[in-house]
């Protein structure tokens, strides 16, 4: 029965990692930069929902929507504050700037919502008792999470396929200069990309909060997990990142179930190192979308 439990947990967390990783990939593909404060955008989104839902008693769905809007706004702010001024600076400056931003966000969260190592509880959205699907015991919360993340990913895919904004993002990812020449406002596309990516982080935070609870330090570990998922799928490859997310989630669940719960924390590191050393192009062997 342990196996079934491990797989169910792995798929649930994997779905969330996949969603965070998709946000990371969207930002990377369009702007060519990895946002090292992505984990903190996730964390702040989670705390926004916590403030609205738990502290202020706003119902779940409106607080989800507001937290996502807040996350998007924060993404917009990061674009204005960090990305846009450094757009022509060396890549080093951009990386270090997003790292610096992550410390600011973490510090602010610690000041507003609690200190070191304190976890903030978040009530589950669904009935907390397990239901049986065949022989496997599953928590309704897990089903809600998996269903909503799959829905989000479908929406993101449709967004890129069908909407004008999504198509301009793809065009900018392909070549910012060519996009500029055909009249796309590249800077505005960058801003939308940042806020979309941050909003996705906030969505996943709201789903994840009831399962893992919140702490200001949650962001960094999550960033590494999303990175692991991203490079497993090949940096910049969106379906790859989704598969990578599930692989990381399931690998963690197995490590926690069969080795030790402390090993779970370093699975992301182990995966990152193995992929970088053995197969830097990721599982599917496609060349990275952009040469770094």
């Amino acid at each position: 029965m342990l196996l079934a439990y491990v797989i169910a947990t792995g798929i649930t967390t994997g779905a969330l990692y996949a969603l965070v990783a998709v946000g990371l990939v969207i930002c990377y593909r369009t702007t060519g930069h990895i946002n090292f404060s992505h984990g903190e955008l996730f964390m702040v989104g989670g705390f926004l929902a916590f403030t609205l839902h738990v502290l202020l008693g706003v119902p779940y769905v409106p607080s989800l929507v507001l937290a996502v809007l807040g996350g998007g706004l924060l993404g917009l702010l990061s674009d204005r504050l960090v990305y846009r001024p450094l757009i022509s600076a060396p890549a080093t400056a951009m990386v270090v700037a997003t790292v610096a931003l992550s410390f600011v966000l973490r510090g602010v969260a610690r000041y507003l919502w609690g200190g070191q190592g304190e976890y903030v509880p978040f009530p589950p959205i669904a009935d907390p008792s397990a239901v049986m699907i065949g022989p496997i015991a599953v928590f309704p919360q897990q089903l809600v999470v998996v269903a909503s993340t799959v829905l989000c990913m479908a929406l993101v895919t449709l967004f890129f396929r069908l909407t004008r904004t999504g198509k301009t993002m793809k065009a900018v990812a392909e070549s910012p200069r060519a996009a500029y020449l055909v009249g796309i406002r590249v800077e505005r596309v960058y801003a939308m990309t940042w806020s979309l990516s941050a909003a996705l982080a906030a969505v996943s935070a709201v789903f994840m909060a009831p399962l893992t609870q919140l702490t200001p330090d949650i962001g960094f570990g999550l960033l590494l997990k999303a990175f692991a998922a991203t490079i497993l799928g090949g940096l910049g490859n969106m379906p790859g990142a989704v598969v990578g997310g599930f692989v990381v989630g399931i690998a963690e669940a197995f490590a926690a179930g069969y080795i030790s719960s402390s090993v779970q924390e370093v699975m992301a590191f182990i995966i990152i190192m193995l992929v970088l050393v053995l197969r830097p192009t990721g599982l599917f062997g496609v060349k990275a979308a952009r040469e770094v």
Partner: protein
Amino acid sequence: MYSGLALVAAVPLVLSPYYVYVANLALVYVILAVGLNIVLGYTGQLAFSNGAIFGIGAYATGLLRLDLGIPYGLALPAGAVVATIAGVLMALPAMRLRGLYLALATIAFAQFTVWVFVHWDGLTHGTSGFVLKPVDFSPLPVTPPTGLLYLSLIITVACVALASNMLRSPIGRAFVAIRESEHAAAALSVNLTRYKVYAYGASALYAGIAGGLFVGAVGAVVPDQFGLFQIVLQFCMVFVGGIGSLWGSVLGAVLIIGIQEGMRDLKQFQEIGFGALLLAVILFFPSGIVGWLKTRVAGWSEPLRHGDRED
């Protein structure tokens, strides 16, 4: 420069033990920042692992003293050697990586190292860390803090002088060539792998020495000291001073430690403060203090610095 040395040397004579400790801490971070600048500012490799290597040096020195009873005079160099080996071992797989991938691998390594400090109880004494007896300088007529300060001062001067000479040698020019363009450097027959290993090895050696001196100064080791906050602290030093400038790192380290100690009461705002400072420097003063000094001090020249392309 000599007046600065004299100032540090005079600290134990005129000021209280607290200032001796702060001066010592500042010297430790000068070594760290100079080491980080070799790899980050001169060789252009994004390495977030310096705080972790610093921790490995501190743990190695401390554990050799605590569990094997090795005197500080031997434990310090041995700890530095362990840290250098760890740094080079980490660098070998990292050699194949560039840019974002490298940043990623080193940041993951930093997290992994702290995890090892916390979870390998049998070796590292776990979450609570360990406390050491003060270093004994008994034949010499100095108290432990004063003795450590002079030891740190001598080692810091040696480290800065070594870095200064190395960076002006063919090795330093190879570093800068790699930073400016790996393809061009390779075309000029710079062996990329070898010089990157040199850069990582040098910065790991510096971080290891700093770790050993840090253990002496603080007298206790806990995993938290070597966590993520080290990244923002050390990067602040290098960027505030001026990335790619040796003297910038020296100034930056002293300044940042001064700010940190001066604002002890505002500890809960450290992350926000140093994060915002780092961000502000990158956005508004990309060449740091040294960039400003260059416009004020006539004839200030420092070869092989970061060019003006960032400005």
